[in-house]
């Protein structure tokens, strides 16, 4: 075979591993430490809780790799437009080869440099978290033997509130850090760790004071009371009329008198 063709063929070479389903399941059990059937929705929720911090950590690593540990970025407003000015040698960078970018430049937004980009990243992260946790919460409630509408509304409402509070606080931290430090990865790192700490604190407070349970109980009580005041009242009214008509029919009185005429 000629020396020219060999590298081309080798570059196109792929290795395909074939596993039987049994072997794959066995491998998964050994790696994960438990049977696939033993995984619950709570495990999915747990994994879901790590998606956004891990994604943000990857972005932070990209910033550090691109700008270095001491990489500095300053946000300046010029003629009403916000610019991100990068300090250091542009030649040593791979992606951000310029010295200044508009704050909404796609490269800057993707790297989450500057408070505007970090806030966008936080907002995106919150949406992803909600898209993961809410369907799982709904599925979790629906798969229970006994559940109420109040439980579903209460659980989803507290999940949304926790995500929004964590994101809001993380965003505020990023904004404040971005205003005082020039470390490029500073606002994103602040947002990641404040978000993690806030999420844990809110969940702990919820468990400690039973906030979700109290909310569920209040919603259930309100829904029951609403049912009593509307459908319950209507059913009782119909029942009363039925009893009266029955009484009139049994006692030879004009049926419907006092009700319809």
């Amino acid at each position, binding site marked *: 075979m000629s020396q020219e063709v060999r590298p081309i063929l080798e570059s196109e070479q792929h290795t395909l591993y074939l596993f039987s389903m049994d072997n794959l399941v066995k491998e998964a059990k050994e790696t994960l430490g438990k049977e696939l059937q033993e995984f619950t929705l709570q495990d999915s929720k747990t994994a879901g809780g790590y998606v956004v911090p891990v994604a943000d950590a990857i972005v932070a690593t990209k910033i550090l790799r691109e700008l270095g*540990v001491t990489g500095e970025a300053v946000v300046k407003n010029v003629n009403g437009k916000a610019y991100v000015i990068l300090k250091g040698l542009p030649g040593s960078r791979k992606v951000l080869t310029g010295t200044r970018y508009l704050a909404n430049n796609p490269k800057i937004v993707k790297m989450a440099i500057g408070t505007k980009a970090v806030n966008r990243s936080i907002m995106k992260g919150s949406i992803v978290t909600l898209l993961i946790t809410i369907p799982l919460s709904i599925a979790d409630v629906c798969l229970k033997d006994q559940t109420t509408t109040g439980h579903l509304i209460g659980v989803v409402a507290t999940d949304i509130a926790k995500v929004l509070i964590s994101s809001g606080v993380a965003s505020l931290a990023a*904004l*404040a*850090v971005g*205003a005082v430090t020039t*470390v490029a990865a*500073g606002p994103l790192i602040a947002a990641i*760790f*404040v978000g993690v700490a806030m*999420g844990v604190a809110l969940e702990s407070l919820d468990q400690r004071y039973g906030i979700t349970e109290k909310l569920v109980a209040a919603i259930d009580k309100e829904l029951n009371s609403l049912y009593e005041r509307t459908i319950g009242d209507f059913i009782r009214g119909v029942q009363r009329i039925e009893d009266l008509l029955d009484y009139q029919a049994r006692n030879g009185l004009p049926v419907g008198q006092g009700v319809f005429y």
Partner: protein
Amino acid sequence: MNVKAAHVVLVLFDFAAVAACYWSLSDYLSVQQALHLGSSSVSFESSLLYLPFAMVIPVLHVTSLLRFWEPVKQSAAYVSAASVFVLIVVVAVFKLQATNEIENQLKAHQYHACETIQKGRYRRVIYRKGECY
């Protein structure tokens, strides 16, 4: 956000971070104490050991002030980044170490995990001596 407002917000975050650290450590110590006293039930929230991560804010805040201090003005960004990195590593190692230590102690004192609540990053396990009920 202007710099003055940012400092005010960061001071609030600094206090909150210290409070979070205190909460985390006091919970860790209360579990140790419960173990020492041989309580029949011990509730361990390992995820509370993530709370000291909030200290990144005071660290970033304090080190951001270094650029006004002439002797370290040039290396302020380096000091800031290095301090945050060290803090993250220390907290992560402490979390793993403390969780392992408490779980080993619980096992050694013949506690059994009876109830586990896991939601996202939050995890609380209630251990009891003897049989679970």
